[in-house]
């Protein structure tokens, strides 16, 4: 909360009434005369063409799924096919006023939207631009195939065939598909036409779309962003969070007015009245009419209205008007576009939840037939023209589908060559993702860097005594320096989260950034962890660098889908068409009990597609954050609240003032030894060093201590080298032991160094309990005592040693049997 905004009790306690705007419902009135003035006949006929093409496109898929063939093409499609037969007008009408610079993001049922957006972009883009896109996208793989299908008389029809082919090939999992088959039916997308990720998680596109809208606003890029999500998704947390995040007052009250206001974000609900089988309107929700939900979000009610999605011109009109509002910075906007699918949710849908007569009633109002009649009635086209269009589409679609199903022309990826593995990370390095000047509010030399750079950079004096903490650079300040550096380097970089501005983050790591960085690059968000991460995902996919923060690791659960399914997946699902320069800072808590003290690094390390860093010293904090902030991959960056106030005490040179990076995936050997190896993750490093010192003093043993620093990627070489030397290894971290990443390490070490092991690898984590209150910390987290005890019990019996705790092998059995 900035001090410039005062909460006045007199105002807060004032008696009054809230007045809300009215919500228009199907307000559009068809006026053929006015419509003929707005659109010429060719444009109107194109609407018919596009709707017919989408219908035909999906009938092919319907045939493949249900009968294994369509018009003589035999094909067994293994993957999903969520069809939108009946919803074509909503998709085509929306794109009538969208340009290639406008983005749409969809759902699992978005084939129609993809085609409509692509067809509309193709009509707008110049021939050489189209050719350029087709030649260069994925090395022109899809173009090569399409050129073999026919001799195209013009670039537009070539590009249309390219769009259809690229989408089919993607659905059929071919290397020539738009995303090399890695996206498939539910995720197909094509960024050059503004077709952005379609999301198979219900509502998943809402917060990602918001992030893209933020990118456009903050980086002054043209266009709006549309999230095409289903009616039932409005009840999912991330959608609600995204709508509120999109409606924050600060865009108008605190951000630089020259940016133009709120992010240009349209929540476009494709309301087909069913969430798979449940009915949001009437059964599973209580809004009565979806458009009402806008009333709950802001004073403008999100400019919400219900639109007749069976009339493409009504949809076009509404989208055009919302686009104007959004470009004027008055977003977010919301449309409740009613439509209906005749096809089932998926091929396995037996329609047990709806009557045949209901489907028939909608079929009678079919938008394609209806719009054909409109064209004929208003002399935009005669019957023959429409028949010709139908025939041409049928023939074209059939030939393209045949090419897309043929394994000779459309092969799958070479999985044996690990082509999928090669797509998991982009492994790029970029100082800046745009070359303009970065927006800052003071020169770096005047920022708090002036203070931190003059502090002691190493925490101990020559005699090894600690220097005064306030005069020594801390772990939190090391984070600050890395952030500050990249803020000045990369104009696209933004950071946001709860209490990031003013407060400087709950633990003060951003102290000094508020003064240096303007609002639109560093801002507070609602307490909406899902939208915080989701918006960052969208921002990164759109081309910017995002640094969201989760105040406590424990809050990751609130952003589970965004971390596990969005942040981790989109690089590979796009076949690297998009990058994910996103660093999610996560703070591992302490002393705050069961819901604020957990180390969940193992959870994210388990998910393919994420890089996981966990620095344990100030030197590593700055060097590793520098590394993460110059990369192009999603990194979950763990920090420990035990360490924020700690100066560097291990790297003898201290923390350099100048920029440096730690080599990715490289563990660091802090203390050489020959008798036993201790590998740690996170803050257990210090307890391991203490244990090593005790082993030396009390047992004359020499322990080697290695900080893994990285969970993924991780170079095992130095660890294996050490284990080959010592034969005994203890792994330790503050994460609960069961399912800990340490067990993955243990298994790998056992396999890589089996013949060198003198004892099984010992794993020491926190207990498999809730984190107890701070007063009982010692019973829960690994200590130096535990480490020596476990070494004595499992690795190397120490003469004359009396263990203080039970760490024997029998404990493994007993604890597991009890489930704790």
């Amino acid at each position, binding site marked *: 909360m900035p001090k410039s905004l005062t909460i006045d009790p007199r105002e807060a306690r004032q008696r009054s009434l809230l007045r809300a705007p009215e919500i228009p419902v199907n307000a559009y009135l068809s006026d053929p005369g006015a419509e003929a003035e707005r659109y010429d006949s060719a444009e109107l006929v194109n609407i018919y063409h596009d709707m017919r093409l989408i219908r035909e496109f999906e009938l092919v898929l319907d045939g493949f799924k249900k009968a294994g063939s369509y018009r003589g093409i035999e094909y067994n499609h293994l993957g999903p096919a969520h069809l939108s037969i009946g919803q074509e007008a909503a998709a085509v009408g929306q794109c009538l006023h969208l340009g290639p610079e406008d983005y749409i993001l969809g759902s699992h049922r978005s084939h129609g939207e993809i085609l409509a957006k692509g067809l509309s972009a193709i009509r707008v883009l110049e021939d050489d631009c189209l050719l350029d896109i087709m030649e260069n996208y994925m090395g022109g793989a899809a173009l090569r195939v399409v050129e073999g299908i026919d001799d195209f008389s013009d670039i537009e029809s070539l590009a249309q065939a390219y769009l259809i082919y690229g989408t089919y090939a993607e659905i059929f999992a071919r290397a020539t598909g738009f995303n090399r088959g890695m996206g498939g039916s539910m995720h197909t997308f094509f960024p050059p036409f503004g077709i952005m990720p379609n999301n198979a998680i219900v509502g998943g596109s809402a917060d990602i779309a918001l992030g893209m809208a933020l990118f456009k606003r903050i980086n002054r890029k043209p266009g709006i962003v549309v999230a095409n999500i289903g009616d039932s998704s409005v009840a999912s947390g991330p959608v609600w969070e995204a709508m509120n995040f999109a409606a924050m007052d600060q865009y108008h009250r605190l951000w630089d007015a020259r940016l133009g206001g709120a992010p240009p974000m349209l929540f476009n609900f494709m309301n087909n009245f069913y969430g798979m089988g449940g009915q949001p309107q009437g059964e599973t929700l209580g809004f009565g009419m979806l458009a009402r939900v806008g009333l709950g979000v802001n004073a403008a009610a999100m400019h919400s209205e219900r639109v007749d999605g069976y009339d493409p011109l009504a949809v076009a009109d509404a989208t055009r008007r919302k686009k104007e509002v959004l470009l004027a910075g008055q977003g977010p906007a919301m449309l409740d576009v009613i439509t209906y699918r005749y096809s089932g949710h998926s091929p396995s849908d037996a329609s047990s939840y709806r009557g045949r007569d209901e489907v028939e009633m909608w079929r009678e109002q079919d938008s394609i037939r209806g719009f054909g009649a409109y064209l004929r009635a208003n002399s935009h086209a005669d019957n023959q023209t429409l028949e010709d269009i139908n025939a041409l589409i049928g023939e074209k679609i059939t030939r393209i589908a045949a090419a897309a199903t043929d394994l000779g022309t459309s092969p799958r990826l070479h999985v044996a060559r690990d082509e999928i593995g090669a797509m998991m990370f982009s492994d790029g390095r970029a100082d800046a993702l745009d070359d303009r000047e970065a927006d800052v509010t003071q020169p770096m030399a005047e920022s708090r860097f002036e203070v931190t750079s003059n502090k002691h950079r190493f925490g101990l004096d020559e005699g090894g005594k600690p220097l005064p903490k306030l005069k020594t650079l801390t772990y939190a300040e090391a984070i600050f320096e890395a952030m500050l550096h990249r803020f000045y380097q990369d104009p696209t970089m933004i950071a946001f989260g709860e209490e990031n501005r003013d407060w400087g983050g709950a633990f003060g790591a951003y102290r000094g950034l508020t003064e240096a960085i303007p609002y639109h690059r560093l801002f507070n968000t609602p307490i909406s962890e899902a939208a915080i991460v989701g918006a960052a995902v969208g921002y990164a996919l759109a081309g910017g660098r995002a640094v969201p923060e989760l105040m406590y690791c424990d809050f990751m659960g609130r952003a589970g889908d965004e971390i596990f399914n969005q942040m981790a997946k989109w690089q590979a699902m796009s076949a690297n068409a998009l990058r994910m320069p996103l660093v999610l800072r996560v703070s591992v808590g302490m002393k705050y009990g069961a819901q604020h003290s957990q180390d969940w690094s193992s959870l994210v390390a388990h998910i393919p597609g994420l890089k996981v860093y966990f620095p344990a010293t100030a030197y590593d904090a700055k060097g590793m954050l520098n590394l993460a902030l110059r990369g192009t991959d999603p990194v979950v960056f763990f920090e420990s609240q035990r360490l924020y106030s700690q100066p560097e005490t291990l790297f003898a040179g201290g923390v350099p003032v100048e920029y440096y990076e730690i080599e990715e995936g490289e563990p660091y050997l802090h203390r050489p030894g020959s008798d036993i190896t201790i590998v740690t993750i996170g803050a257990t490093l210090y307890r391991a060093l203490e244990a090593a010192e005790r082993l030396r003093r009390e047992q004359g043993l020499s322990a080697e201590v290695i900080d893994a620093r990285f969970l993924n990627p991780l170079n095992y070489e130095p660890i294996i080298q050490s284990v080959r030397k010592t*034969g005994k290894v203890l792994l330790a971290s503050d994460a609960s032991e069961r399912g800990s990443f340490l067990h993955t390490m243990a298994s790998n070490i056992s396999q890589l160094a*089996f*013949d*060198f*092991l*003198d*004892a099984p690898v010992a794993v020491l984590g926190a207990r498999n309990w809730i984190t107890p209150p701070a007063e009982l910390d010692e019973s829960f987290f690994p200590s130096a005592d535990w480490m020596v005890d476990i070494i004595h*019990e*499992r*690795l*190397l*019996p120490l*003469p*004359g*040693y*009396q263990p203080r705790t*039970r760490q*024997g*092998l*029998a404990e493994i*059995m007993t604890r597991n*049997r*009890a489930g704790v």
Partner: protein
Amino acid sequence: MPQAIVMPKLGNTVESAIILSWHVGVGDPVQMGEALCEIETDKATLEVESSASGILLARFFEAGDEVPVMQNIAVVGRAGESFDRLAPVPAAPAEHAAPRVSHDHSDEKPADKVLISPRARNLAGRKGIDYSETAGTGPAGRIIERDIRALIDRQVKMSPVAKAMLASGEYQIADKGPIDKRITKSDLAPSMPGASPELKAMPLTGVRKTIAKRMLESMQRTAQLTLNTSADASSLRGFRARLKSSDEALGLRGVTINDLLLFAVARTLPAFPELNALYENDRILQHARVHLGMAVDTPRGLLVPVIRGAESLSLRVLSCEANRLAAACRDGDVLPDELAGGSFTATNLGRLGIESFTPILNPPQVGILGIGSINLKPVERAGAVAHVPHIGLSLTVNHQVVDGAPAARFLAQLRKNIASIELLLAL
């Protein structure tokens, strides 16, 4: 919550203890601090006290069971409470039907398998170290690296050059006092000129190989104690002379001094079951019958055929059987079964003029009697020195399981029986 009572860890080196007796029965009330059972370690006998008050719900082990330390041995709680999760995990089917008798897997040593870490095994392999007799100092007695290092340190080390020189056969270790650390080139001297052609290298095969292995094992695995004495051989000789001159039809002329001694041993042993016994797998197996092994010198090496049930054979039958087995051994047609299953062995070097020696045990047997030559021994009789023929007796026992006194008592009885061999025949 029911509470487990664990076998206490009674010291750093104590890995298990034996339950001697239970003081409290299942279902009986017990107070915290009350003695539940008496246990014995290799060092002491003491009591396990209950760490909880309540009803003794279960005893997981019986008296006599050896239980690893820190293992749950009993449960105290409220009547009717479930305690399944506290029971030790069952291992192989238990011999007696005690409730869930088990062993802690972590301490369980696979039968006949040395517990050794991969690293230690690797090191031993590279250095050619035999660790089979080594006690590990790792967790659960596992042999770990430091144990192999200790073995290596005990070995006399040799430089690679010295090794190659020795292997050539042209050099030998020079006789110039003890070598403390490492044998190098300077510790070697040329072998006697022309010595090597006289050397005949013979690989160990067959019986010799087995003997080599078994003799070494015997010395390594048992604690051998040899007691020497002699017995008055006057009547032995006299009786032997009578047999020799007996009616041929009686078939007793072939009975030798050795046969008479075997007879004496066979008839004496039943009264000393601790000597007529086997020791293996931490158990002593006492034999009711005497299966008497007799060492036979053959061209292939030493063989020990067994006279079954020797204590019940007449002298004549025993002599015939000894004769038959010795011949079979020399002719090489002895059956494998005739060479196995002995409970005690006698070996005779007396015919070769050896007065006494230290016979090597034939494990798992715990006793072997060496028979020496007959020599005159000055004996005081009625104030004067008389020279009486005495036969040498050397008894080696496994001191692990046979103490010196019982062994001496057996020898005393044997001496008496030999001295009055006719009386023994009359029994």
